[in-house]
């Protein structure tokens, strides 16, 4: 086996290298040669290829994402913005909160359990890396049709994987989404959100500074996980025999991660690190180059010091390995003994693999020979940037010109049938078959969790300070109008926070799209980012970070554009939170906001196989007025529940079934009023004597009590409604 060193690269400029197989374009390969002034070694080639991949370099999305910075509203709350592992927000009382969403879509299709599990593991490490204790997770999911055979393989595995990993870490799962659509059949979406909390002075950044400081790798040993691509390289380099088979799937060990969390928090508490980075995509290549690039640039790493699970790994493979549950820290020599002691207490594998140096090169050696010598910024932060062509796809004008023509219920029998359909359709049916597989109680601070509008966790037991989070996406609207769709998803997430009684503060997002090489998809993406940036500016909510997932398509068919928007809010006293379920009989029900004919993109249209029309236009001024009203009058709401997918029909079903308290509702145009999905609406229950306090456009639609949901002359017993609502998932997946 011959080692491809920097010295040999200098003397063999004409060696053929498999850059194309590694996903690099000829001009990208040429640029690497230009940067290095020679051909790259195989290790350097491996590093550049993964760091310049779409996933790590954001090369197609960067030019658009920069709007989040350019249009950023002024916010005193933002402590760490885009660019770090996760953004950090000030929530008061000296507390800082960090939150982020990541996707693990493709791996979860190949191996649902492990793909989803390692997705949770990855986002939790991103949060931990900021210096925070992870305190909750959420999981927005998208699947193919509920009754498709492959969904029966994919959904139970993904759900078990999310639960298996998150439960074992002791992180309450406080919310998520599950939506079904044909376009996700070969490409399910597994997005995972994690939120963590720390004191202001505990914030950690990914930077390596201070010559002489040590580079420490701790956590799991390195195996051959997720290096399928790089094996190409190894086999080219090492001749026909080639390396052993490398797994295409990563397997997670949540127990190791749990121990790693506790160990890291103990290390943070004693302030023993200068900088820290988790190992995620692109493994050590990413961690070392980002740490060095974030600092002054100089770092030396002895790759042979990395503890291996599989001793047959080549240096290229070690650099690329995506083995889970690993972290890389920069530690001052005076703290290393204590650092190692804490690792020993938790039985965590740890090794010093290098040190920070003067100068600006990242130098990696293998048994004394230099195999990498690169300017780290060129690997980590100065990758290629594409201005991909984009153009409005032809379908837009076609679908926007279509009229929605669906039967609307009028008679008592029709209303009842429509209510039972809405109650039982997979997109709106009770999800407890899924959510009961998640621990929502662990840590003892969960105030609200699924099926509430927002998840809410207490941050401080003494002051009762808390945070709320909601994630939302309406891909049907984004399909009709991605610009408005993004704003509407933002509005919905913010509304969900306010409905629960918390003040919206900051935004994260996970943008799931098809291929950026398709100008139509690229247009959907560009419009989405523009809409989200405009919306955030108008609502005064900074984007703190996020994730872009491209290439979500099966053959030529892209998924619906699916921007998942997460909003974080703060609540001063969690005891004032407002739950969604009607708590008592004898209350008045009011609908806040105005209902228009907004059936395009609605669940009712979807149920009638209609995909056309125009999405609503987001009115964020109105949304903010509604949010202000909700926050100012929180104390009079006995319950409050947002209207979204499935309109008033779905909201009434959920609000009555929650505590098994019925309602009697009177509507003038029941069909539209029940099924339209006009945004900016909320159902509230109040004491009749508080009626005068409603200073927002509202309609009294009924009263609470009884054992039925009665709408005009349609009476549906809660028992029947409950059966329809709860039997769908067990029947499909049980």
């Amino acid at each position, binding site marked *: 086996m011959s080692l491809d060193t920097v010295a040999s690269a200098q003397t063999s400029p004409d060696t053929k290298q498999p850059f194309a197989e590694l996903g690099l374009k000829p001009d990208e390969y040429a640029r690497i040669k230009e940067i290095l002034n020679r051909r790259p070694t195989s290790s350097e080639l491996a590093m550049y290829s993964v760091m310049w991949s779409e996933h790590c370099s954001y090369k197609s999305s960067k030019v658009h994402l920069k709007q989040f910075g350019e249009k950023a509203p002024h916010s005193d709350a933002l402590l760490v913005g885009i660019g770090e592992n996760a953004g950090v927000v000030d929530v008061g009382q000296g507390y800082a909160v960090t939150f982020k969403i990541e996707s693990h879509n493709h791996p979860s299709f190949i191996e649902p359990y492990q793909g989803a599990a390692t997705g949770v593991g990855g986002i939790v490490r991103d949060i931990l890396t900021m210096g925070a204790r992870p305190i909750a997770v959420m999981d927005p999911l998208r699947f193919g049709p509920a009754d498709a055979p492959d969904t029966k393989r994919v959904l139970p595995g993904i759900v078990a994987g999310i639960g298996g990993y998150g439960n*074992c870490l002791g992180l309450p799962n406080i919310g998520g989404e599950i939506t079904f659509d044909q376009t996700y059949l070969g490409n399910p979406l597994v997005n995972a959100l994690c939120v963590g909390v720390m004191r202001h002075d505990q914030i950690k950044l990914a930077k390596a500074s201070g010559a002489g400081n040590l580079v420490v790798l701790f956590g799991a040993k390195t195996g051959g996980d997720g290096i399928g691509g790089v094996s190409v390289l190894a086999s080219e380099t090492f001749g026909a025999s080639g390396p052993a088979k490398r797994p295409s799937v990563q397997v997670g060990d949540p*127990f190791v991660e*749990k121990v790693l969390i506790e160990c890291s928090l103990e290390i943070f508490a004693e302030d023993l690190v200068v900088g820290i980075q988790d190992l995620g995509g692109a493994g050590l290549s990413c961690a070392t180059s980002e740490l060095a690039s974030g600092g002054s640039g100089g770092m030396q790493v002895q790759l042979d010091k990395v503890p291996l699970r599989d001793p047959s790994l080549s240096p290229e493979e070690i650099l690329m390995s995506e083995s889970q549950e690993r972290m890389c820290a920069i530690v001052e020599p005076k703290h290393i003994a204590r650092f190692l002691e804490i690792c020993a207490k938790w*039985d965590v594998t740890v090794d010093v693999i290098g040190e920070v140096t003067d100068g600006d090169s990242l130098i990696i050696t293998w048994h004394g020979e230099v195999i990498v010598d690169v300017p780290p910024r060129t690997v980590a932060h100065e990758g290629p940037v594409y201005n991909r062509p984009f153009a409005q796809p032809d379908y837009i004008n076609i679908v926007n010109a279509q009229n929605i023509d669906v039967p609307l219920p009028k008679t008592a029998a029709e209303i009842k049938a429509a209510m039972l359909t809405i109650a039982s359709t997979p997109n709106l049916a009770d999800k407890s078959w899924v959510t009961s*597989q998640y621990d929502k*109680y*662990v*840590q003892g601070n969960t105030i609200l969790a699924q099926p509430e509008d927002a998840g809410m966790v207490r941050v401080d037991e003494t002051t009762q300070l808390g945070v709320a989070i909601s994630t939302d996406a309406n891909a049907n609207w984004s399909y009709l109008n991605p610009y408005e769709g993004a704003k509407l998803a933002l509005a919905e997430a913010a509304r969900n926070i306010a409905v629960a009684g918390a003040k919206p503060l900051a935004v994260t997002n996970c943008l799931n799209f098809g291929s950026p090489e398709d100008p139509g998809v690229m247009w959907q993406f560009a419009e989405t980012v523009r809409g989200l940036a405009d919306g955030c500016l108008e609502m005064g909510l900074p984007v703190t970070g996020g994730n872009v997932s491209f290439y979500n398509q099966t053959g030529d068919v892209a998924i619906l554009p699916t921007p998942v928007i997460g909003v974080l809010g703060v609540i001063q006293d969690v005891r004032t939170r407002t739950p969604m379920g009607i708590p008592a009989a004898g209350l008045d029900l009011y609908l806040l906001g105005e209902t228009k004919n907004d059936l395009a993109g609605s669940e009712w249209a979807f149920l009638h196989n209609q995909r056309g029309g125009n999405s609503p236009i987001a009115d964020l001024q109105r949304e903010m007025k509604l949010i202000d009203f909700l926050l100012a009058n929180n104390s009079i709401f006995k319950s409050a529940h947002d209207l979204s997918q499935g309109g008033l029909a779905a909201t009434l079903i959920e609000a009555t079934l929650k505590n098994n308290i019925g309602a009697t509702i009177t509507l003038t145009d029941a069909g539209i009023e029940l099924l339209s999905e006009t945004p900016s609406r909320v159902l509230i229950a109040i004491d009749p004597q508080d009626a005068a306090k409603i200073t927002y456009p509202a309609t009294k639609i009924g009263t609470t009590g009884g054992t039925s949901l009665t709408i005009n002359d349609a009476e549906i017993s809660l028992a029947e409604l409950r059966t329809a609502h709860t039997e769908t998932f067990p029947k499909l997946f049980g």
Partner: protein
Amino acid sequence: MRIGVVTFPGTLDDRDAARAVKYAGAEAVSLWHGDADLKGVDAVILPGGFSYGDYLRCGAISSFAPVMTEIIAQANKGMPVLGICNGFQVLCEAHLLPGALTRNHELHFLCRDQTLKIENTTSAWTTNFTKGQEIVIPLKNGEGSFQCDDETLKALEDSNRIIARYVGENPNGSRNLIAGITNERGNVVGLMPHPEHAIDSLTGPTTDGLPFFTSVLSALVGK
């Protein structure tokens, strides 16, 4: 009164158990799995979680921890010990309690608010309940199905050693709907559901779990 709460690697509900101890009015003392030292506590709680990842069998690897050697010795002398969920599994693996906890019959982790009927009100951890009292506390586990042979089952039933049973549909396939049991002496109790998550209705479904923790204080004071 000082009540020890053990942390194994992978323990999750230790903070919650300690909080419940404080709510009940006692001092919580954290005990580390690797130290064979009970720090002079009057009683011990083995909390829930996934100790050692729950690999092999839940609770199996933890039952050999140094701290367990001490706990087993003290339990045999009458010290009150409560094992919740993973703690119950540890107590069975350590043979302080009979039987074993196996995979839920539906093969899923199950987290839900569960109604229980308290049957034994004489153990160290249940004197503040009334016989037949129904309570609602969270159940959350993947391997909560209590199994034992017929002879053991009969012995448990005949000597009033069933602490609580599930009410309604069997959530996990446990024999005779058993949710918790005690040893012959009544000082060691294992319980699958989580009373420490039902001490404050802000964060749990009820406050029905609190009497488990106040009971042991009464038991210790009465001694």
